[in-house]
């Protein structure tokens, strides 16, 4: 497992993050993420889909080491993040796994030119480069994200750029670190519809050309389908379903995934109005008890759902869902054999 060539890029086991809420003595704990197991492979785009409050941004922040996990472990190229304690190791990890933020209007410092953020990253993380090489590299990454002419763009201030261009600058900053995995937290949700696709295409191109993996966090399942190889669906802190994107969308096994899919507005499809299913809301997961967290909204819920928390089961090759009632194609798949997501990359 210690050979970085064979272990997955990122592997999370039992990843859990709880937050204390209320006063110090309130004893109330918000379970943002509970027992998430997942893997992100090299050159893979994994989409993490869920509603706001489902814990998907917390997952990104755990991977970015903004938060320390309450329990569980993240391994990067076979090495536990908890064991990377020195500044040098932290810096190396941060440059390998940078983050791109949702809001391109507040994530760039308005007082500095575009070059500032990129050059800073280069000075900090790419110490092997000379001054001239850093400048050349800054131009290269700006060109790589489709901002031309690069020298001109580097000299501009954020206010001179449109939202789409700013978000590209965000990707250029991340790219300057020579990353292995970019954590993209809702990178297009603040942008206009007509330019979102351009950014999604950019992410796909960066994977091809630079060999970067992406964790693409979104609430827009249609864009997740457009971009990702694999899809993970999160609900109230639990990963409820994951698998190859097309397999999950063609045959969603978890009732929540089914609800999510039915809610996507699609002008090309006839309207299937099912108002009742959508009327519930995700629960706030404070001091939760055992049981499936979707059961209050679930049309299929049985007694067992309130007693036993369903664990992810592999129901079809590489396709898992955490539901007692989900149909399985695999013979003898007992509950909680652990998600068999190793070796991934799918798509048509």
């Amino acid at each position, binding site marked *: 497992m210690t050979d970085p060539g064979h272990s997955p890029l990122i592997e999370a086991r039992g990843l859990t993050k709880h937050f204390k809420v209320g006063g110090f003595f309130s004893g109330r704990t918000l379970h943002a993420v509970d027992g998430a197991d997942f893997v992100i492979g090299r050159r893979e785009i994994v989409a993490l889909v869920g*509603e*706001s409050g489902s814990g998907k941004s917390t997952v990104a922040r755990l991977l970015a080491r903004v938060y320390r996990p309450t329990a569980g472990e993240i391994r990067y190229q076979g090495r536990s993040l908890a064991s990377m304690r020195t500044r040098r190791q932290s810096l190396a990890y941060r440059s390998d796994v940078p983050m791109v933020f949702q809001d391109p209007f507040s994530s760039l410092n308005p007082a500095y030119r575009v070059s500032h953020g990129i050059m800073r990253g280069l000075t900090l993380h790419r110490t092997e480069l000379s001054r001239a090489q850093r400048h050349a590299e800054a131009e290269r990454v700006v060109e790589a994200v489709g901002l031309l002419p690069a020298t001109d763009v580097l000299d501009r201030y954020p206010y001179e750029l*449109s*939202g*789409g*261009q700013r978000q590209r600058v965000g990707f250029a900053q991340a790219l300057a670190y020579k990353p292995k995995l970019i954590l993209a937290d809702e990178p297009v949700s603040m942008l*206009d*519809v*007509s*330019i*979102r*696709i*351009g950014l*999604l*295409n950019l992410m796909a191109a960066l994977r091809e050309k630079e060999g970067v993996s992406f964790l693409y966090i979104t*609430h*827009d*399942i*249609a*864009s997740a*389908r*457009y971009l990702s190889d694999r899809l993970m669906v999160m609900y109230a802190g639990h990963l409820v379903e994951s698998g190859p994107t*097309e397999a999950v*969308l063609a045959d969603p096994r978890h009732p929540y995934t089914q*609800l*999510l*899919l*039915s*809610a*996507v*507005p*699609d*002008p*090309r*499809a006839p*309207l299937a*109005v099912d*108002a009742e299913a*959508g*009327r519930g*809301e995700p629960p706030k997961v404070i001091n939760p008890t055992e049981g499936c967290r979707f059961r209050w909204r679930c049309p299929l819920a049985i007694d067992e759902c309130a007693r036993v928390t369903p664990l992810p089961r592999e129901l079809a090759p590489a396709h898992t869902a955490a539901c007692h009632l989900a149909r399985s194609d695999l013979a003898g798949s007992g509950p909680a054999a652990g998600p068999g997501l190793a070796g991934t990359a799918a*798509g*048509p």
Partner: protein
Amino acid sequence: MPAARILEVRDLRVEYATSRGQVAAVDGVDLEVGAGEFVGVVGESGCGKSTLLFAIARLLSPPAAITGGSVVFHGQNLVTMTEKQLRVLRWRDYSVVMQSAMNALNPVLTIAAQFKDAIEAHSALSARQVAERSVEVMRLVGIDPIHLGSYPHQLSGGMRQRAMIAMALLFTPELVIMDEPTSALDVVAQRSLMVQIKELQQQLGFAVVFVTHDMSLVSHFSDQLLVMYAGKVVEAGPTRAVFDTPSHPYSRGLLEAFPSIRGPRVALTGIPGSPPDLAQPPSGCRFHPRCPVALAECSRVEPALYQVGAARARCLLHDPDRSPRLEVPEEARS
């Protein structure tokens, strides 16, 4: 649709006074709404859709001002009315649902207190009648009336938006103007709110003007659709017609910018470039710098709205005087 027209916007122009001179955010917009009709207004940020909506409701404040055209609501021109005259119509005859309920609701007042404010500003009901009506509208939008005693922060995003809609329905107005009421919600909550708005509309018979940047959102709910670009209407017509056969290259581009969750996975291109600076709009057709089928004359000639089937489109390709076929320049074909 043979419904009586309740709102008629003609040649409306709204300008912002900026340090760079007057900027027209809404430029010659026409819009008609029949009784009980659902009209969707779609476009990107900065296209003037929200300004249009604020102008219709007469809610603009400086530096924005209506500099031309008329908004005729039930035979009365709202543009020339005084605040006092408007006060008679507001809430009772038309109401507005704002984009962000978190900002539109007062955080230090309970929902009930805010309902009471709205009712008392526009009518003289007794305290009991106010309470009864508040409970009624909360039931209408599917919130337990117990939440009348709640403060906005105690409600979820979806419930806050519902409370806003409940407030807009206090007097059962004939027209409800909505500015992206679902944009802060998740897909599931969004869909359920849209379905509910549609149900309420059918039940109570009010007309809706619904502004959104998400074209697919209104695809199943609106009767008429208005596509705006850079302050102008570029396409208008029955929703189905616009979706099935978009006539303007911009509407087509917008539609093609949405990945689908069904059918084969296809590569999409979106629309290159970004919306223009309204202080210096492009000459001729405002979409020509981003248009995949632009002609040489598109940069010179400003197109009118031409009839195309059931819809109208502001594109020279549909100019009947230029037909049958314009010569498409070689570089525009690629």
